[in-house]
């Protein structure tokens, strides 16, 4: 029993999960049952995958001990690259390949510069935040190109599921979240990521190619952010160059709320997913409760700090529970 309690207290995503359940109940009661209505859920689940996919990449990169501030800009750049190419008559699938390749290249540059020149990733990706945003606006030529009308919306944005409760993007989100989670817990690569972020000298001494592991995580993070951006653009029907602004910080907040440590080695994809859901739930719940929308950022900020405090308290308490090792 004590052992079980300890195991749960050591799960960093636990605090966020409890909070999520409490908030859902609160909003449900406060909104007189509207919060969990099919119509409202449709709204939440429609947008969730866009921040959620970004959070998955950010979480994995943070577990690996690095950090990416450029995801919000990459979120806008990838669909803009696609839109510009498609406006020139490039078929969707080729434009998609080019967009993902651009994201992979950005992730590679982020990782390569960070590792080769021993720069904090905070700085490299801050630079990339400006560069990618600027490129997005430059290639859009001032106003966003029109999207062709034969896009595969059936693959990304149409409503599906029981009562058309969610969009196809939600299916992508769930599948990618499950795969990412399995990668972290079941594969040797997941082991290497956690070791690299947990204690770099030990990972290196055990022969793990830590530079390559980190670069792979940077690339994965950028590609997921770009993919998420494309989904948003398909949903909105237009590639606005300003989308994703400020999302990089929301994504970090979600990861942290979900129990991922900035110092690396600690965290779980599931935690990040819960953090992303929390952010969407709060955004939506505040609107439903007719609270001034400007409280949204306050809530996210409060939650981020609160989650870290609770997690560190839980970890301390868990450590104090003495079980035979």
């Amino acid at each position, binding site marked *: 029993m004590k052992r079980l309690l300890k195991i749960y207290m050591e799960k960093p995503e636990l605090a966020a999960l409890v909070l999520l359940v409490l908030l859902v109940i609160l909003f449900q009661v406060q909104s007189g049952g509207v919060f969990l209505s099919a119509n409202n859920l449709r709204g939440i689940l429609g947008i969730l995958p866009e921040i959620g996919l970004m959070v998955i990449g950010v979480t994995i990169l943070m577990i690996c001990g690095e950090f990416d501030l450029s995801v919000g800009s990459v979120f806008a750049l990838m669909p803009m690259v696609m839109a510009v190419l498609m406006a020139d008559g490039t078929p969707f699938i080729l434009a998609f390949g080019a967009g993902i390749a651009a994201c992979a290249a950005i992730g590679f540059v982020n990782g390569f510069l960070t590792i080769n020149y021993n720069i904090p990733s905070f700085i490299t990706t801050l630079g990339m935040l400006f560069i990618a945003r600027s490129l997005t606006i430059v290639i859009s030529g001032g106003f966003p190109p029109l999207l062709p009308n034969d896009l595969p919306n059936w693959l990304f944005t149409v409503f599906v599921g029981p009562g058309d409760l969610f969009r196809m993007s939600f299916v992508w989100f769930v599948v990618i979240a499950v795969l990412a989670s399995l990668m972290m817990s*079941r594969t040797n*690569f997941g082991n290497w990521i956690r070791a690299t972020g947990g204690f770099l000298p030990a990972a290196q001494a055990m022969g793990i190619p830590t530079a390559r592991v980190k670069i792979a995580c940077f690339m994965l993070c950028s590609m997921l952010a770009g993919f998420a951006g494309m989904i948003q653009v398909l949903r909105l029907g237009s590639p606005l160059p300003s989308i994703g602004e400020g999302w990089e910080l929301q994504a970090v907040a979600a990861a942290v709320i979900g129990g991922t440590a900035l110092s690396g080695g600690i965290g779980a994809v599931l935690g990040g997913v819960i953090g992303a859901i929390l952010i969407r739930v709060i955004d939506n719940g505040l609107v439903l409760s007719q609270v001034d929308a400007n409280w949204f950022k306050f809530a996210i900020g409060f939650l981020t700090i609160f989650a870290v405090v609770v997690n560190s308290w839980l970890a301390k308490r868990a450590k104090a529970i003495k079980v035979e090792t």
Partner: protein
Amino acid sequence: MSHPIISVRNLHKWYSGVHALKGVSLDIYPNETVGLIGDNGAGKSTLINILSGVQLASEGEIHLDGKPVRIRSPRDAMDLGIETIYQYNSMVPTMSIARNMFIGREPLKFRLFGLGVMDHKQMAAESTDAIAGAGLHLRSPDALVGELSGGQRQGVAIARAMHFKSRVMILDEPTNHLAVKETKKVIDFVRSLKDLNITGIFISHNIHHVFECCDRIVAMARGEVVLDKRAEDTSMDEILDVL
């Protein structure tokens, strides 16, 4: 006398301005335990890091069983049967014992280009065996390494090195930051290496520890070997003199 298992010839290492190793040559024979001693900054860790693939030599040769070898990465060293236990501890505190045991050498159910799904069952079973084999009493291989005492961590590191059938085990100041009782355990382990058919290199700056468990004593100072004698042919005074 038999042929050396490892022989190092004229090893040099520069760290930009610092000449950390100035032509070190050393023969290590099968099943002997060599105590490497010297003050901080003498170059002991540098020599060891070259043997374990963490650093590259600037100049010089390494022979294993008489054949020249190139150790370019920790993985190369491990594949040659050289396992190292570091002073700063080669464990990731935020990971379980079982995961730590197999970092970089995870048993896989299937693999594609070196990546694949880990066999958690095998990892748990083998780490339980390895821990018991090293004489440690740990209840579960799922415990986080961060929860273990310094001595227990070194115990797990030793269990890991033994599990992978090392031929040469290098221990770089493994007793730093350990309690007296735990230190004694590590010294006893070093003394038992011979019975396990493992060649040992034990680094310490504590001269008493080295005399307690080593057959041969090599002293280093300022990047050079300044003394190399069998333990019974030298004394603490002589070693303190040359350091």
